[in-house]
Structures are given as structure tokens and as C-alpha cells.
């Protein structure tokens, strides 16, 4: 084997590993007998302003479409179960976990990823604020944090309450630290850069 060993290469050799006799692998390997007929689904969607028409396996998530089909690896795969928020993107302007969406369900949708929020020359205000406040350590959760914050600030503008909003009937909600922490709870930072993330978001929102 002269091919370099890659993570993807290892994942692609499931049948060879199965031959080693692991029952766990045998159980989780796709079984043609129990699965449905193979098919592809047509998906047409706009990502960061560019339209794409793709044929994908129905199992493809929006996250895998972005990373594997379009090469947009800014969106991160953390837990792949909607628990960590690293894959947060904007779908028709709403923040969502890309891992919890089938690509097929995103047909006709407009997606914005971290690559579409700002450029190196002209950072998005949230990106600039994260840099200024050191809102990260390892940086893995950062694209998700920033996309989530962008979606969250838009929700605030529309007057969406949160679990810590004292007056449910208020039409204008002040963004305070407790509101940021509650509204951003779907984004986990295992380095625990939370104080700086909160400071960055408050500044980008014009509240600091």
C-alpha cells in the first residue's frame, strides 16, 4: 500500500476490518437485505451565494454535504448528534445544526457558513470581536459559535424571548450576559472560553 493513510481511507475500509471478526462492526455495517434499494436524491441549494446542484445518497447530512461534497471544512463536525453546536450554520437565516439536517431536506434552501460570513480582508463584526476578546483557545467550536451568535442576534432583533427573559410579553429584550449565556447554550466550548465568547458577542451586539 503506497497510498497515504488518512482518516477517510480507514473509514472506507470497513469491510476489511469486518473480516477481522468484530461483531460490533458486523452489526453496524449497512445490510443490503434490511436496507432499502440504493438511490440518490437531487439537491439544489445555495451556499454562501453560490448555487449547487448535487446528487447525494439520502443518508448525506447537510454537514457532510458542506464538508465532503463542497469542501467547505470551516463547518466542524463535533458530536454529529446535535449536542455540541460545532456544525451550526444559517439555513434561510435561521441557525441550525447542520448534522441534524438531511441534505435532501435542504433542497432550495439558502445556506450561510462561516466561509460566507466575512472575508480575511473584511471580517464579520462577530469575527473581529472574537479575535479582539480572544474568544477561543483551540478554535474548533469557533465557526459554530460565530454562526450561532449571528443567528441569535437576528432572533433577538425579531423579539424572540429566551428561558431567562423575565417578562415574556416584552417586545424589546435587552441583551445582557445571562441572555447571551442562555441563548448560546447550544454551543459547547470544551476549552471553556465562555467569558471571552460572551464578551465578544456583547461587543458585536453593541452592548459592551
Amino acid at each position, binding site marked *: 500500500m503506497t497510498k497515504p493513510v488518512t482518516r477517510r481511507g480507514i473509514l472506507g475500509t470497513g469491510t476489511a476490518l469486518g473480516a477481522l471478526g468484530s461483531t460490533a462492526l458486523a452489526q*453496524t455495517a449497512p445490510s443490503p437485505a434490511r436496507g432499502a434499494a440504493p438511490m440518490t436524491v437531487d439537491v439544489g441549494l445555495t451556499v454562501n451565494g453560490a448555487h449547487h446542484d448535487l446528487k447525494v445518497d439520502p*443518508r448525506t447530512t447537510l454537514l457532510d454535504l458542506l464538508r465532503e461534497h463542497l469542501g467547505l471544512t470551516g463547518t466542524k463536525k463535533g458530536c454529529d*448528534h*446535535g449536542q455540541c453546536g460545532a456544525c451550526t450554520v444559517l439555513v434561510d437565516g*435561521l441557525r*441550525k445544526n447542520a448534522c441534524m439536517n438531511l441534505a435532501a431536506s435542504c433542497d432550495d434552501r439558502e445556506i450561510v457558513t462561516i466561509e460566507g460570513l466575512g472575508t480575511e480582508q473584511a471580517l464579520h463584526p462577530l469575527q473581529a470581536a472574537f479575535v479582539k476578546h480572544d474568544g477561543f483557545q483551540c478554535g474548533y467550536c469557533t465557526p459554530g459559535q460565530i454562526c450561532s451568535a449571528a443567528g441569535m442576534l437576528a432572533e433577538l432583533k425579531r423579539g424572540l424571548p429566551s428561558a431567562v427573559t423575565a417578562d415574556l410579553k416584552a417586545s424589546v429584550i435587552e441583551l445582557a450576559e445571562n441572555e447571551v449565556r442562555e441563548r448560546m447554550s447550544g454551543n459547547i466550548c470544551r476549552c471553556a472560553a465562555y467569558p471571552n465568547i460572551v464578551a465578544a458577542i456583547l461587543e458585536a451586539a453593541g452592548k459592551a
Partner: protein
Amino acid sequence: MRAFTYERPADMATALTAIGKPGAKFLAGGTNLLDLMKVEAEVPQHLVDVSRLPLVDIAEENGGLRVGAMVTNSDLAAHALVRERYPMLSRALLNGASGQLRNQATTGGNLLQRTRCYYFYDSSAPCNKRAPGSGCSALQGYNRIHAILGASDACIAVHPSDMAVALAALDAEVEVQSAKAKRRIKITDFHRLPEATPQKETNLNNGELITAVILPPPPAGGQVYRKVRDRASYDFALVSVAALVDLDGERIRSARIALGGVAHKPWRALEAERGLVGATLSDDAFAAAGEAAVKGAQGRGHNDFKIMLAARTVARALTEAAQQRKA
């Protein structure tokens, strides 16, 4: 994830026919179904994507509200009439999941989400819900998050929804439709206790699609949703309580109590409610209601603490609801 085929019907009639295909399941927000498909706790052969069916309206109806099944948790929580008339529902929704998930999860899907029992998710562990007849790993296992009311020796899992707990207290109904008929099911009759068939979680029939949730006119009284969990945000309830108290001066005219995190379904504590009617407002009355709400509760070891926690959370929620009524 096992292979499946996918379709997105343009209208309800097509969707209700498509669900008759072998191994078919409806897909709405997918925040739980997709998660379960990844661990192969769900293995549909065909997905019928209903997320774009025109079931997204919230409209006044007979003094109450009709909520389309595809209304997202975010939109329902933020709706002006829900915030004004059914604040416990708004609060319950806002206390569930994360901002991202609430933007995607639907009203109908929320009712059909499955337990977060770790053994249900773990395909290497026996689980009567996932593999009927294989046994319940939680009975003798780590059962800190499990049921204290209405459980059976086959399953001690709890229903994870916050929204459904508020709906139970509000006497909501679930409207469902099949290719042949439409019917309404009381929310308290919608989910089942595990008994010997924990794999059957609701009284939906094969081929039925949830089309709406119907809220009756808002009941008089102060409304509270109180949730106790391990993290301050973005976590399932250890115990949650939706409480309503209506007062006539210092006397309790009526009360409603529903609990989450304690049973296989949202748990309405009717006996505790009846005990409060006509009682004079006092800490003792609410403490007694808390005790009545957990009458017959059974701990399984790690979750023993939930019995006292539930009683006290009921008392606290009732106290807050009475204060709101006075204010």
C-alpha cells in the same frame, strides 16, 4: 446509518399514501429521528419528508388556539398569543433543547420524540423498547434519570418532552389524520405507559400523521413551568412541573399539576389537584399537594432522589403560580 429511500410529497394526500410503503416513517424536523438513525435505534427503510406540508399556521379557534404540526418550537414559543395566554407553554418550550434545535424541531415531532434513556441509544445493551423481549438494562443499571411513576418491569424510561408537560396541564388535544379519517386524541391519552409493550409509546395508529395541536381557551389562573436539571441550560429535565393556580381571595379555586421527567408520559397529578380545590392558600397546602403528586412513586436506586425533588418542585411551582395570580 442504514440505507433508506427518501421522498418529499407535495401535499398531504400523497404523504398519507406514501406512509403505507414498507418500513416508512414520517420525517419532520428530524432532530430526534436522524439522531436515532445514526445509532441505528431507528432503521426506517423509507422516509416521507412532511416538513414542508402547509401545517405551519397558528390560528385562534373557538377561543383557543390551533397550532399546526409543523410550527417550530421557536415560532410557537415566540407567538404573541402563546406568550400572553399560555405562558407555561412558552416557558416549557424555551426551557427545552437549544436555539438551533428549537428552530428546527416541530410541534408534532416534539410529541413523538423518544426517550433519552442511555440504554435505548446503546445498541449493545438489552432494551425492551428498542429490541422487545431483550430486557431492560436500566432496571439494575445506572437509572438516575429514570421513571418514578407509572413504570413497569419491562421499561423505566421517561418521556423527554417539556412542551408535552405544559400541553398536559393545558388539556390540549392532538389532531391526527390518516388516509381514511381524522380524529382528535386528548394529550393525556396520546402517550402510553410502558406496561409490557414499551416499544409502543403512543396511541397513534399506523399511517396517522399529527396535523395540529389544539389548545382550549386559556384557563384562569397563574401559570408556571419549572424545570430542574443537571445543567443550567440545554439539558433534559430531572423533574419538571407545569402548574396553574386560580384563586378566590385566599382560597384556591382550582389548580392543575403536570410533571415531566418522572414517567413514560407527561404525568398529570389529578388527585393532588383535587386536594387543593377549596383549600386556603398556604405553604402546607402546597406541600401536601407535592406529596400527593408522588403518591405511589417508586425509586430504582440512583433515581430515589427524584421522589422528594418532584414533591418539592410541585410545591414550589404551585407557590409561584399563586403569586403570579395575585400579582
